[in-house]
């Protein structure tokens, strides 16, 4: 089993952090995992994305041409990565910023107003956490429990005060599709 996830959005949406937490959750679950960032061809501005690959054996490539899951937080990322989801794969989009559209027939679509949910909880800054919750809901191999532990691990002592809000956002994401 080897699955890869592309997480994408614009700078400031906490994409790299979300990817780090996802990767940590896999590590805590005892899997092999890699995380790899991409800043795109342009050096400044534009979208940011990272790729997380989880595997039972050693990860084969850390940066693949297509993805099993794409988690996209803005329109540009949707437009770009919808093309790179494998046939049969899933794209999970932040409907707050992404228009509902289904340009391909061979993949699954999940739309959730992650930004709105985050705002409702208290800050659009935790949209990324909401999105991870949605991902856990959609994707079997992503574990809510390990995600929560990973959030704690990554925030660490220094940012402990943000833990409750982040966990709440994660939680909210997990039940967003209900």
């Amino acid at each position, binding site marked *: 089993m*080897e699955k890869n996830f592309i997480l994408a959005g614009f700078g400031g949406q906490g994409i790299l952090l979300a990817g780090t937490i996802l*990767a940590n959750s896999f*590590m805590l679950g005892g899997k*092999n995992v*890699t995380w790899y960032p991409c800043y795109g061809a342009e050096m400044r501005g534009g979208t940011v994305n990272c790729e997380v690959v989880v595997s039972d054996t*050693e*990860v084969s*490539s*850390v940066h693949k041409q297509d993805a099993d899951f794409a988690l996209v937080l803005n329109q540009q990322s949707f437009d770009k990565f919808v093309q790179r989801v494998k046939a049969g794969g899933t794209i999970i989009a932040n409907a707050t910023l992404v228009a509902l559209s289904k340009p391909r027939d061979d993949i699954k679509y999940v739309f959730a107003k992650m930004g709105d949910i985050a705002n409702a909880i208290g800050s659009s800054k935790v949209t990324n956490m909401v999105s991870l919750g949605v991902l856990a809901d959609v994707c079997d191999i992503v574990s809510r429990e390990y995600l929560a532990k990973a959030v704690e691990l990554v925030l660490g002592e220094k940012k402990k005060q943000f833990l409750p809000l982040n966990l709440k956002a994660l939680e909210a994401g997990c039940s967003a599709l209900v």
Partner: protein
Amino acid sequence: MSSEKVLIKGNYAIAQAAINAGCQCYFGYPITPQTEIGEYLSAEMPKLGRGYVSAESELAAINMVVGAAATGAKVMTSSSSCAVALMQEALSYACSDEVPVVVVNVMRAGPGLGYVYPAQGDYNQAVYGGGNGDYKIIVLAPATVQECIDYTYKAFYLARKYRNPVILLADGLLGQMMEPACFGENPYPEVDVSSWALTGAKGRDGKAIYSCARDEKAHIQKIHDLFKKFEIITENETSYEEFETEDAEIILTAFGSMTRNIKAAIRVLREKGVKAGGFRPITLSPFPTKRISELAADGKDFVVVEMNMGQMFKDVKYAVEGKSNVSLVNRPCGEWLSVEEIVSSVEKILNKKEGAYASCI
């Protein structure tokens, strides 16, 4: 913490491993994709009362490293590709000086500026040098973040054990990716450097570390001695990884983080009924020429998979000496060759049995 797994970036792994190995001072100048090594150390070294120097250039940094190493200090610098090119003169000196220098090269693309496209184009730069004269550097190529740690430990050890510069040749992928890894303890013993290190001429005559014997005969002897030393290094330290070579008809060969891709490709090929195996030099210098030669003598063909125009390919072919076919699957830089690309290229090669010619994708 040391025996726990942590998810960590290759660059930070190298930096922390250097600290664990006892690195006393870091000298460096920023360049993507390895700047985080210096950034990490600028934060950590002062806490430990150790040294950090923002050098004005890589040329300065490597010469600082050589000066410090001459006193027996554990020191390192790190950089990338075009900037490592600026270190060639000093590396040639360091080999001749026999000082234990550790250089990390987290490769980006070339030639020239190369931006930050991932690549493995500095194989020749590391293995054949580019400084003047005859000298050899030990080159270690890690494939995973764990190995970034392991071989950083090893780099410091080998450098001191043999009084020879060591290059840790990583790539941008490895530097930038995170992966779970475990620091453990630096497994290597301390090396006694007191016989040669400069410490001030206390209770003895002054001694000097320099590159060139003053008399022709002595200099010739010195070079022969250096090469004899490297024969011992070759004997003791040549290191490689083999997977499923025993029954293999075709052996995929890669170095550095391309290793993971060939491993997966071998699995796929095996599933498809192809008797594929893998061979991965860990020390690019000394190169496992002998082992490759043995495998070739067994009639096994080779496919070299690398992110450059066939630099290691040439050394594999040299080792094979016409005993079997050697092919190349490569891209000069950019998107890493995917498992699928590798598999389909190998299949093409098998069909044509063309051997010994490059099949650049």
